[in-house]
C-alpha cells in the first residue's frame, strides 16, 4: 500500500494558471503538466491528449498503459539522470496501485459537484490514480460543454481516498470470531458446566455449595475443584490446573469489584 496517499488537494488553480504539479510528493523538482498544451516535461506521453479534450478512457486500458510505463520506469532506473527516475516513479506506483486487482476497488476519486445553472448537483466516483484525481478526469459525461467546463469544474471538490477492504474484512471476521468464541465459552461456563457438575458430583456437593452465597455465580466451585485437583496432582494435567487457578482469580476479582466494591467503583 503506497504511503504517499494523502488526499489530493483540489486543483482549482490548474485551470487558471494552466499548470499544476504532479503530486505533492514530487515537490518542486517533480514537474507537472499543463492543461493548455502538452508540454515537454509532462509525466507520461499519453497524459496530455490535448487542450479541450482531457483524457477519457475507461480504467482498464489506461491501467495497462500505466503498467507498461511502470516497467519502463523500472528499467530506466539504471539511467544516471535522477530527475527522470523521480518523474517515473510515482507514475509507476500509481499505475500499479490502480491496477492491482485487490486495490482496484480500494481507491476512489470522489468529486462532489454542486448545482450549476440547470444542472443539479451530482457526485462522481471513479477508480483512478491519484494524479488524475480531478474534475476533468472524473466527471463524465460532462454535463456542460464548452466554456462552462471550467466554471463547472471550479466548483467541484475532488478527493482522492484509499482504503483496504481486505483489512476491514479480516478485522471484522477476526473480531466476530473472538467474540463468538468468548460467548460460547461464557455460555459453557455459566450454563452447561454447573449442570454437568451437578450430575457428576451428585447431591452432597449441591448441599455443601449451597451454603456459599457465591454459588449463583459462575466458577463458584473452583475452590473445591482446586483443592481436589491438588490432592491428585500427578494425574491432573497442567492445563486444567491453570484453568482452575484462573477461575479462582476471576472469582476473587469479581468479589472485590462487584460484591465488596473495594476497587474500580
Amino acid at each position: 500500500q503506497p504511503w504517499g496517499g494523502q488526499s489530493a488537494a483540489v486543483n482549482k488553480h490548474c485551470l487558471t494558471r494552466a499548470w499544476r504539479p504532479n503530486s505533492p510528493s514530487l515537490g518542486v523538482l517533480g514537474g507537472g503538466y499543463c492543461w493548455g498544451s502538452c508540454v515537454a516535461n509532462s509525466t507520461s506521453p499519453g497524459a496530455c491528449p490535448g487542450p479541450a479534450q482531457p483524457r477519457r478512457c475507461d480504467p482498464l486500458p489506461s491501467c495497462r498503459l500505466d503498467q507498461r510505463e511502470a516497467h519502463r520506469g523500472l528499467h530506466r532506473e539504471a539511467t544516471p539522470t535522477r530527475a527522470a527516475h523521480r518523474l517515473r516513479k510515482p507514475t509507476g506506483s500509481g499505475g500499479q496501485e490502480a491496477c492491482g486487482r485487490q486495490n482496484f476497488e480500494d481507491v476512489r476519486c470522489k468529486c462532489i459537484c454542486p448545482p450549476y445553472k440547470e444542472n443539479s448537483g451530482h457526485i462522481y466516483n471513479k477508480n483512478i490514480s491519484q494524479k488524475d484525481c480531478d474534475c476533468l478526469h472524473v466527471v463524465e459525461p460532462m454535463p456542460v460543454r464548452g466554456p462552462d467546463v471550467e466554471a463547472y469544474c471550479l466548483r467541484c471538490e475532488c478527493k482522492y481516498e484509499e482504503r483496504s477492504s481486505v483489512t476491514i474484512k479480516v478485522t471484522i471476521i477476526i473480531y466476530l470470531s473472538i467474540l463468538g468464541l468468548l460467548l460460547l465459552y461464557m455460555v459453557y461456563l455459566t450454563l452447561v458446566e454447573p449442570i454437568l457438575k451437578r450430575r457428576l458430583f451428585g447431591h452432597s456437593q449441591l448441599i455443601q455449595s449451597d451454603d456459599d452465597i457465591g454459588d449463583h455465580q459462575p466458577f463458584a466451585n473452583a475452590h473445591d475443584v482446586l483443592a481436589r485437583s491438588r490432592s491428585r496432582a500427578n494425574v491432573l494435567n497442567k492445563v486444567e490446573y491453570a484453568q482452575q487457578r484462573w477461575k479462582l482469580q476471576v472469582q476473587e476479582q469479581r468479589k472485590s469489584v462487584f460484591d465488596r466494591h473495594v476497587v474500580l467503583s
Partner: protein
Amino acid sequence: MAMWQGAMDNRGFQQGSFSSFQNSSSDEDLMDIPATAMDFSMRDDVPPLDREVGEDKSYNGGGIGYSNRIMDFLEEPIPGVGTYDDFNTIDWVREKSRDRDRHREITNKSKESTWALIHSVSDAFSGWLLMLLIGLLSGSLAGLIDISAHWMTDLKEGICTGGFWFNHEHCCWNSDHVTFEERDKCPEWNSWSQLIISTDEGAFAYIVNYFMYVLWALLFAFLAVSLVKVFAPYACGSGIPEIKTILSGFIIRGYLGKWTLVIKTITLVLAVSSGLSLGKEGPLVHVACCCGNILCHCFNKYRKNEAKRREVLSAAAAAGVSVAFGAPIGGVLFSLEEVSYYFPLKTLWRSFFAALVAAFTLRSINPFGNSRLVLFYVEFHTPWHLFELVPFILLGIFGGLWGALFIRTNIAWCRKRKTTQLGKYPVIEVLVVTAITAILAFPNEYTRMSTSELISELFNDCGLLDSSKLCDYENRFNTSKGGELPDRPAGVGVYSAMWQLALTLILKIVITIFTFGMKIPSGLFIPSMAVGAIAGRLLGVGMEQLAYYHQEWTIFNSWCSQGADCITPGLYAMVGAAACLGGVTRMTVSLVVIMFELTGGLEYIVPLMAAAMTSKWVADALGREGIYDAHIRLNGYPFLEAKEEFAHKTLAMDVMKPRRNDPLLTVLTQDSMTVEDVETIISETTYSGFPVVVSRESQRLVGFVLRRDLIISIENARKKQDGVVSTSIIYFTEHSPPLPPYTPPTLKLRNILDLSPFTVTDLTPMEIVVDIFRKLGLRQCLVTHNGRLLGIITKKDVLKHIAQMANQDPDSILFN
C-alpha cells in the same frame, strides 16, 4: 573486596541507626568524596560511571543487594523473595537498587566472554525492542477497535448487502447511485426496515428502525457487561485512575493481565457501539498498558523488577494515547503530566519511540479510510481575531463549570453505587442506562450518530458543498468567487440544528454522569469533548450571526466587513471541547497538544491555551481534584499526590506507629529469636514488615525485613534445610556465633534483611517526611530517637495523616 563491602555495610548501618535524616543527607555530599577516592584504589576494573551508581546505592538501601551477591555463592535465591502481595505498595528504592545490582553484574561479566558481552548488549537493547513490540501491538489493537466499532455502530441502523463487513460509509464507497441530495444512501446499504418490511418510508418503518436500534444497543451493552462480569471484572471502567495508582507503585494483580486485555478490547467495541455516552480513549490507555505488562514477561530485565516494569508502563500509556487520539506527542505529554509518577528522561525517549511506532502502525492500518490518523482532522485555516478571546474565555469558564459539576455529581453517584444496594445490580444498571440512552437518542439525529462522528461534524467548517443541516446557510452572495466563504445568514436548517444540538447537550450532560463508572469499559474524553464541542458550536454560530447582523458594532466593524469570513464556528467547537476536557481532567499542556494534533489546527494554539487555562482555574476554584484523582480517593488507593504541597506543622512522632497508648513496636532481634518466636509474631500481627534490632534492651536498629520474605524463607528452610525446627535460632548477623553442641542448626536470614532502611528522627517535620515518601517512593520509614528505634511510618500512615489534615475521613485509605 570483601573488606570494602564490609566497610560499606557497616557505614550504611551506622548511618541508619545513629544519625537523623538531615544529617545523612548533608553527609552525603561530604562523604562521597573520600569514599570515591577510596573506591578508585580498590576497584580499578569498574568504569567510573558505574561506580557512582554504586556509591549512590549504599545510601539508598542497597544493603540487601550486597548481601544477595554474597549469598549467591552459597545458595540460590529462594523463589518468591522480593515479590509483593496483591494490593500492596512496592518499595521503589529497593527495586531500583536491585536493578542497579543486576546491571552492574551484567556489565562486570560482559568483559569475561563474548557471550556475556552479547548478553549485556541485548539486555541494553531489550528496552527499545520492548517499546517496538508495545507500539506494534497497541497500534494493531487500536486499529481493530476502530474498525470494529465503526462497523458495529452502523449495525444498529442497517447492514451492507455488498459484504456484511462494511460499515455504512464503506458500503457506499464505490456506489454510483449516491446522489447529491442524499449522500449517505445507496442501494447496497439496507436499513433494518428495508430488510424486514421492505420499505424505508412511513411511520411503521420508523418504528421498526427505532425498535431495532434500541434492541441492538441493549444487546451490545448486555454482551459487554456479561463478558466483563464473567471473564474479567477488572476490565470495567476507564482504567486511568487505577493505572495512575499502579504507576505510583501499587500492585493490583491481574489488572494488566491477558484476560483483561482480551475482554477490554472486545467489550470496548461493544460498549462504544451500544451508543452509550462513553469513549474509547481512556480504555485504550489501559489496553496499551496491558500490552506493555504482558510483553514485559518476555524480558528478564522487566519481568522481575516492579520499578522497571513501571517505566515500561509509563511508555505504554503514552502509546495508548498516541493511538487513541492519533496524537503521538500529546500521548507522551499525557503520560508525563497526568499518568506517570516516576518519569526519568530515559522513559521520555522510550515513550516517544513507543508512541511513534504505535501511531505508525495505526496509520498503516488506515482505519478511517481517510489516510489520516484521526477522525477529527479540520481543514480550515482561517485566522482568529483578538476580540474572540472573550468568547474563548467564556467557553473556558463553561468548561470549568461543567468539569466541576461532572466530578461532583459523578463521584456522588459512584459513591452511591459503592455503598448502597445499587451496586448489587451492575447488569441491570447497564441495561437501564443503555435503554434510556437509546430511546432518547434515536429521535434526535445528533444523538443517534456516534459521538465521535458528532464531534467531527461540529469541528468541521461549513463549505458550499456540505450537506448537513448545520451548514444550511443562505447563499446570498455571488457564488462564482471561489476560495473563502464569507459569513452568511443562517438558514432554516441551522436553526433547527441549534435546537437539536441544545437538546443533545442536555442529554449528554445528564447521561454521561450516570454512564461513567458503570461496569463496562468507559472513557470520558469523548463525551466531555462532545459537551464542549456542542456548547462551542452553539456559541460560535451565535457569534457568527451576531457579527453578520450587526456589522456596525464597534467590536465587529474593524475586522468583520461585508463579505468577510470573520467567525469560524468550528473553531469555537474545538475550543469548547478543549475547555470541557480540561475542566474534567485538569490537564493543560498535554491537552492543548492533543487538541492541535487531533485537529491539525496549529494556528489555534493560543485560543486552546486560553480556554484550557481558564477552565482549569474555574474548575480548581470549585473543586480541588480532577476526575481521576477523585476516583482514586473514592476507592481509597494509596496514591501520594506529587502535585500538592503538604503545609502543616506536624512532626514525625505525631504520625508514627505505635501511638502513645499503643503497645510497643513489634521488633525482631538479630540473634536471639527462635523460629517459633518469629512464627508467633507473624501469626499474631498483620504488619507487612518488621524492624530488626540488636537487642530489645538497646533497641539499636540493624535493618528491616518484610513479612512476605520472612514467611517464604522460613517455609522454604523448614522444607529444604536439614534440621531446622521450631527451636532453631534465627540469625540476621553476618556470622553466626559458634554453636554449643546438641543444639538444632541455626537459620541464617541475612539475605532477606534490608540493611539500609530509611530512618528519620522523631522530630523531623512531616513536610520533609512527605517529601521523602514522594520523591523516593518509600514504602516505610523508621523513626529513631537518640539512635534508638522508636516507631515506624508507612505510606498508609502518611496518606491517612494527609487526609486527616485535609479534614477528610482517614479511614477512606484502604490499602497498604
